[in-house]
């Protein structure tokens, strides 16, 4: 029984992590509070829905199962482009004003949500998950690990590895870290900070798209899909500390696991309260989260 709870916790953590990874970039590295992140997730989810519909309409039924393979890069690409447009048209005016960026992006989120409602209709739409993800792994009597959840965990790990290599092992990533650490110095050394900003934000958005794609496996999707996750995702980033990927991972694991445990012990609503109390209590001990960037600067 505990094994199942553990797996559930892991599964929730992985979803949280996937949602929070994009935020870890936009919030952690760029200090922009992107409240439209939830809507980028929604865009990713609807991209998956569209890919599915296209496969249904134009390709033979035998090919249908493979739509999901294409849906992941498609949702990344679409969310990436939306993020790029958002950065170039709005976010760049808001660097250094985190609270203002929060309000402005919330407005953007509102517009995007309404746009989705106008295009796809207010009711939720269902995405048929591919048949190779049906069923699950039987590890014990009565303990079934659904393939969908295992797939999401694998997807998160893949995203994490890809991001690790991008941020810490590529030229682009090095430029990105340089700009985030010392913008003026990076600019002096010939890094195009504007381009780096745009790329960074767009990648964060693209990962939100992947998260949206993964969420279609968990149930039907609607225009307000992202709002369920956005605050939890921000809590992950706050708990994990900004600037390092490992903090985000720890934050997501912490919230996901405790959430499952508390909900198992009490009930859904009390569980959430207990998690919140735990987070605030933890912040008493480490106000900057699990992993804090050391710096001598004030503020």
């Amino acid at each position, binding site marked *: 029984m505990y094994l199942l709870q553990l797996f559930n916790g892991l599964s929730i953590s992985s979803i949280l992590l996937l949602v929070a990874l994009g935020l870890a970039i936009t919030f952690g590295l760029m200090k922009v509070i992107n409240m439209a992140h939830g809507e980028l997730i929604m865009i990713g989810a609807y991209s998956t829905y569209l890919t599915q519909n296209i496969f249904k309409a134009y390709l033979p039924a035998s090919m249908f199962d493979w739509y999901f393979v294409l849906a992941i890069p498609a949702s990344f690409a679409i969310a990436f482009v939306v993020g790029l447009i958002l950065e170039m048209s709005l976010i760049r005016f*808001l660097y250094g004003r985190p609270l203002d960026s*929060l309000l*402005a992006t919330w*407005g*953007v989120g509102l517009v995007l949500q*309404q746009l989705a409602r106008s295009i796809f209709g207010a009711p939720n739409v269902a995405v048929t998950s591919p048949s190779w993800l049906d069923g699950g792994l039987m590890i014990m009597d009565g303990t079934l690990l659904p393939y969908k959840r295992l797939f999401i965990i694998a997807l998160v790990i893949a995203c994490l590895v890809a991001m690790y290599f991008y941020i810490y092992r590529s030229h682009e990533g090095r430029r990105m870290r340089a700009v985030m650490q010392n913008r003026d110095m990076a600019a002096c050394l010939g890094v195009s900070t504007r381009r780096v900003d745009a790329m960074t934000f767009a990648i964060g958005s693209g990962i939100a798209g992947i998260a949206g794609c993964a969420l279609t496996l968990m149930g039907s999707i609607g225009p307000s899909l992202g709002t369920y996750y956005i605050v939890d995702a921000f809590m992950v980033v706050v708990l994990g500390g900004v600037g390092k990927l490992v903090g985000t991972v720890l934050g997501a694991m912490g919230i996901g696991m405790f959430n499952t445990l508390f909900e198992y012990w009490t*009930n859904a609503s*009390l569980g959430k*309260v207990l998690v919140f109390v735990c987070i605030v209590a933890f912040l008493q001990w480490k106000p900057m989260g699990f992993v804090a960037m050391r710096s001598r600067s004030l503020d």
Partner: protein
Amino acid sequence: MLQQKWTPQRIWLLVGYAAAAAALFSAPMFASDFRLNLLAKFLAFAIVALGLDLIWGYTGILSLGHGIFFGLGAYAMAMYLKLEASGGMPPDFMGWSGLKELPYFWKPFENFGFAVAMGILIPSVLALVLGYVTFRNRIKGVYFTILTQALVIITTTLLVGQQAFTGGTNGITGYSTILGASLGSADTKRVLYWITAAVLIAVFILCRYIVGSRFGKVLRAIRDGENRVRFIGYNPAIYQMVIFTISAAIAGIAGMLFVLHVGIISPSMLGIVPSIEMVLWVAIGGRGTLIGAALGAIAMNWAKSEFSTAYPEGWLFFMGGLFVIVVVFMPKGIAGLIGQIKFRKKRKEEDHEGIRNPAV
């Protein structure tokens, strides 16, 4: 600010305020009952906006949790009204959830005075606790904002989840009387309107006093440079806690008045969206000016009630767009725009309340 001379501007300002107050009090003579009820609701919102402006406009702390403080005040009043309607018996929704006895924490709410006291105390204490655990550790800026938003989420899930005690998603509604007077009658409504108007003016004067006092100066100093304030020897955490608590108390008062006019309170009225809408009122009216915040709340809600029923889709687009435009192009809101025009006219007379150097 503390010792002002009777300059012509100040006299005109006072005349303006007096005219506005007179207009507020005489509104029942012109407006229909329906309009009056709407206006009363807007005035209640204006009270929250004043409280929100104290912490956001003057202290630079953005709270997205004011819906909760507003809502807790509203729930306290709703509990009293519900008990009066049911004559002290367990209210209807408790019966649906299988609750026979009145829960112990509902009992004292039969007393009007207790309910009002709780409507102010509960939000204040919650704000004080949250402020204590955050400001003391210098958890501020966006971190604080996110925590307030999380507080909103857990409070609404709690209110929805504990259906037997709170009425769940439907909230608490179905009131009949307040202190024996029927809530439906036009006379009671008029009196309640006057009370709301009086409270708004009282809160306005209180906020004005706070802002003009030495305390208010420290608040603005915290907004513009928290570390400098700390180096001078003040402890910003205490100031932040106190103003956050005052602001929450004001929101609680507004919530109580809101319930009287609207006749229902439910979790959807204090969730994430209403909380952030409150911020929008202040942003549009002009953060850092009290009159701007109050007028912004009234104007936005008026516009909402006019347009949102006719064009529900267009309204959301409009609101989203407004958020972006106000934040990017006019961070000081409408009052700030007027201030800018004044500033151009008279360079010498600096607008001491405008946000010239936002620290966040």
